[in-house]
């Protein structure tokens, strides 16, 4: 069991899973397991009883209509919901067997292992170099050569060739797609274990989206990726597994809440979903 009070090994294991592997319905080597995860914003019960597991070196997509709680679930995995004063989480989220909502867990240590890329590209108004170096600097990573680390992170995010001559320029001068790849470079510079992506392409044009999707396929070799997306084709294209969420009415009160409907291999979800609601949603009959 990894100890969250210690830094994890900076070298990610390259346990490569190909899509051709006969994969079980549930990941054999889960990084995260949620058990009866419930999230409340004040009185609003945003997500009810989510049981999910996310496989190592897999891409898992969370899909579903607006308000179904998929982003909320994603933001539980690195304790980002802590930043919202009224948010309350019940149930457990175990990360390599350790409950990240446990009493002695420091959310900062959690976030150092679990990186995040947001919906809107949000580079710091600093130089490209300083953006990438930010994480290693604040986490006090032992870095022998920061220049090398910046280069490898930017290369890893397929951005190096475009920015290598202007590392000292302000990141705000990049295009939207470049900014988002910079944010990915910034996230992987701290050598995390998992990268969470919250609709990373929704603010980008189709060409930039394609680049990010290609990048995700690359990153999958070294990282576990969990992505929230509104774009079903994107989920079908990039992910190994898909979790479909929906908005339900609570039987007792009739209040709306988000819930997990179906979780399976992506091919299964898109070709032969088990649940009628999944089928309606992916075939566009949702209403």
């Amino acid at each position, binding site marked *: 069991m990894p100890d969250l009070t210690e830094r994890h090994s900076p070298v990610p294991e390259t346990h490569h899973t190909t899509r051709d592997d006969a994969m079980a319905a549930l990941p054999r080597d889960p990084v995260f397991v949620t058990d009866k995860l419930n999230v409340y914003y004040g009185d609003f019960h945003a997500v009810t009883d989510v049981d999910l597991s996310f496989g190592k070196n897999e891409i898992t997509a969370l899909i579903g209509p607006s308000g179904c709680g998929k982003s909320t679930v994603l933001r539980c995995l*690195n304790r*980002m919901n802590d*930043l919202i*004063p009224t948010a309350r989480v019940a149930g457990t989220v175990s990360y390599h067997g350790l409950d990240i909502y446990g009493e002695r867990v420091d959310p*900062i*240590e959690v*976030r*150092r292992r679990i*990186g*995040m890329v*947001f919906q*809107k590209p*949000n*580079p*710091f*108004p*600093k130089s490209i170099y300083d953006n990438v170096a*930010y*994480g290693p600097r*604040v*986490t006090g990573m032992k870095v022998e050569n920061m220049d090398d680390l910046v280069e490898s992170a930017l290369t890893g995010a397929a951005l190096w060739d475009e920015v290598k001559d202007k590392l000292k320029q*302000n990141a*705000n001068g990049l295009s939207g797609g470049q900014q988002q790849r910079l*944010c990915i470079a*910034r*996230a992987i510079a*701290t050598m995390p274990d998992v990268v969470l992506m919250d609709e990373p392409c929704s603010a980008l044009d189709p060409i930039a989206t394609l680049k990010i999707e290609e990048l995700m396929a690359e990153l999958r070799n070294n990282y576990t990726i969990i992505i929230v997306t509104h774009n079903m084709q994107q989920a079908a294209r990039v992910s190994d597994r898909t979790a479909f969420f929906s908005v339900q009415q609570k039987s007792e009160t009739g209040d709306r809440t988000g819930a997990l409907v179906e979780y399976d291999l992506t091919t299964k979800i898109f070709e032969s979903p088990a649940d009628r609601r999944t089928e309606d949603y992916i075939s566009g009959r949702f209403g």
Partner: protein
Amino acid sequence: MASSTADSPAGLSLEPQSRRVGEKAIVAWLFLAALAAVLITIAIVVALLEPAAEFFRFVSVTEFFSTARWTPTQADPEFGVLRLLAGTGAAVLYSCIIALPAGLGAAIYMNEYASFRVRQVLKPLLEILEGIPTVVYGFFAVAFVAPLMKDNWWTWLPGQLGEEPGTQFILAAGVVLGIMIIPTVASVSQDAMAAIPRGLREAAYGLGSTRMQVATRVVVPGALSGIVASFVLGLSRAIGETIVVLLAAGAMANLSILPNDPVFTMTAFIGRTSTGEIAYGTTTYYSIFAVGALLFVVTLVVNLISIALVRKFREVYE
């Protein structure tokens, strides 16, 4: 136009449907209001510069800045304004030592650490403090701060520093000026910090930053122009404040920054001298305006420096 209306279908007109008299009147009124503000400012500058120019017919600019003594009310008056400038500088220096760290610290605390409820109480409280009349602060200085310091002076300090001050001294004025401008610095700084986009804050937390790292590496650099603006606003208030320094710093035109010495500031001179004991048309009378003009220039320079600093250091977020 006749030709176009002829071609268009019946009843369709894209011409103005009313003359909008009310809107025009309101625009005219808004323009006059803006114009009045500008004209009044110009009028003040002219009213200040004219008698100041008169002063410089008697005392040359070089003399004004190079004379060693400031004795405008004596039989053979001398006008060495550096004494007053230094007095203002000394009082403002101590006020900044107090107010800038305290104000910035309060802003960071309110913005990054305080819970929503605490912030809901603290912010209005600070804004109320901003509204306290300065004469109250002056009284607070004379009746409370100065005697307290005088009675508990650090007499173990070496040399002149260890001497117990009189009833009026720089530190008393500086401390009270500092307390007076803390709310301004804190409140304006915090407004600037609150305007940092949520996305930047989330990005920083997402990378494993501590609260202090978010504050010092993302929020403060992003809010720098607002923070510097708050410093300048506070500094300008301290430079221009009259009653506190008049009551607490004294009327001795010393060239000193020792905390236990009294000084005479530019504003204190203006306030003290223009309250009726001076004859109209004398050089001393005109010197009030010269000092006023200098005060105006000092504030202007402080503002220009701050603009230059902000241009150089701030991080512009989108």
